[in-house]
């Protein structure tokens, strides 16, 4: 017997919308089974994981703080993935954005001016763009697969950050801890009242709206869409594939860089060896869960932010490892991709005889 994927003539529109919901449901079921296997009451586990994060004002603020980088990065990746450009290294672009953006307050900390913050943001984006341009360059001129190069550059960026905070950029008054000086004064992002919610949240919402209009209404957005869906046709239409590759990587890299410097000028407050709990990787799930659509990404970012908060809650009140959050996120991505595949293909079972003759031929 043989199993085969067969393309469906017309993928169902309803299923395209429903499949992420099915994926979330399946993730919850698997989660409940996992809790039960660990001897935890599944209802209590799911409550801690998915309800508590949205049950109080404090946790909703924290939810926005976590969703901010996820949405910023995810919306850029959504555009990128639509063009069939696979930027897997947003985590590295985030790190480079943080490093380059934090250069001003660290190297010129006496300089206090309202210009500091906008400059930091611009430099942060520039850092992300520069880092994402490397895979674009390699792809366009040497045909190197951008999945590998963007991913491997993550580790280069993280090691550079690690070296900087242990070496040249270490806070001289920091008791030898591997940390830079704190972001103070003009180097801090304004926050909403006394909460941890910062201006980065507004950047994220703005990016969603701008990219929504961009994809729906502009010729460039159309070019990206066509380039991903029908590369040959896009060539006939006079669109350049290398230009699209570069544009998409730069866009998603710039947004990841902005997310990185926003973390430093916001909730993290200084450079440290580790500045992100894998936002750049989780944003890949955000992009897919959001159907690669800017508005969808906004909601998906909130869902994945819940999984981060739930993971923290599970550590505190259930005594589970912080890896639980990653298990949930990975399970979710698996089910999204599986249900997407089954929306486009159906499984056909071939009987033994037919399968054998197929092989014989």
């Amino acid at each position, binding site marked *: 017997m043989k199993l085969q994927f067969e393309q469906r003539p017309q993928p169902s529109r309803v299923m395209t919308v429903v499949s992420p919901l099915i994926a979330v449901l399946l993730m919850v079921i698997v989660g409940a089974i996992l809790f039960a296997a660990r001897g935890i009451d599944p209802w209590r586990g799911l409550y801690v994981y998915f309800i508590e994060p949205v049950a109080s004002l404090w946790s909703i603020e924290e939810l926005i703080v976590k969703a901010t980088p996820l949405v910023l990065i995810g919306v850029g990746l959504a555009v990128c993935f639509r063009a069939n450009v696979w930027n897997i290294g947003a985590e590295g672009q985030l790190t480079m954005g943080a490093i380059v953006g934090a250069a001003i307050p660290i190297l010129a900390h006496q300089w206090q001016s309202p210009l500091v913050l906008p400059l930091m943001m611009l430099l942060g984006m520039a850092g992300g763009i520069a880092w994402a341009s490397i895979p674009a360059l390699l792809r366009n001129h040497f045909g190197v697969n951008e999945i590998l190069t963007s991913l491997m550059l993550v580790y280069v960026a993280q090691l550079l950050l690690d070296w900087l905070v242990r070496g040249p950029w270490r806070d001289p008054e920091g008791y030898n801890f591997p940390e830079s000086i704190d972001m103070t004064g003009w180097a801090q992002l304004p926050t909403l009242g006394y909460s941890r919610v910062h201006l980065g949240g507004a950047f994220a919402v703005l990016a969603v709206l701008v990219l929504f209009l961009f994809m729906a209404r502009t*010729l460039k957005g*159309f070019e990206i869409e066509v380039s991903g869906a029908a590369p040959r046709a896009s060539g*006939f239409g006079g669109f350049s594939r290398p230009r699209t590759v570069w544009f998409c990587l730069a866009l998603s890299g710039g947004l990841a860089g902005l997310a990185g410097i926003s973390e430093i000028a916001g909730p993290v407050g200084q450079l440290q060896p580790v500045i992100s709990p894998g936002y750049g990787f989780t944003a890949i799930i955000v992009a897919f869960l959001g159907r690669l659509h800017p508005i969808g990404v906004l909601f998906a970012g909130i869902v994945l932010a819940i999984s981060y908060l739930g993971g923290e809650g599970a550590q505190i009140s259930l005594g589970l490892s912080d890896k639980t959050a990653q298990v949930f996120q990975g399970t979710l991505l698996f089910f999204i991709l599986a249900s997407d595949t089954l929306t486009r293909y159906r499984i056909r079972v071939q009987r033994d005889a037919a399968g054998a003759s197929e092989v014989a031929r």
Partner: protein
Amino acid sequence: MPGFVLAENALLTRHSSDPGMVRAGFVDRAHTRATAARVTERFDVRTSHANPAASALSGGNLQKFVVGRELDREPRVLVINQPTWGVDAGAAALIRQVLSDLAEAGAAVLVISQDLDEIFEIADRIAVISRGELSDTFPAGAIDRERIGLLMAGAHESGARNSGAKREVPA
């Protein structure tokens, strides 16, 4: 592009030649829809509703739309391969008419086709490609089927495959 609606397919090849389609980087959706509707109407493309996805059209209707989309922009130079392939007789006649009109109006039209009837109907000058070699060009009145057949066979070589006739309409 199968998954895209006709207006988007019109936008694909005409975004740079049609000044009204894109303004300051933004797509004028009313204009692209109107263009698609005009092509649909003029070339008798049968659709289930206004602006369907290209994949919802039958092969013949899709061919009518694709050819119509290019003819509608009134090009000054046109190279077209098998323009009436898979199209019903009425639409084929219309496409041939438009090709002739275009040439009449002063455009350079090069039609590549294996349909000899079609070639004799609209061509002013005819040349034959056989085994990758182009024959001399003959005025349509000075060549007949038999001569074309010989040229297609490679004139004095036998067994030529993949030959096609080519018609030219002078600019």
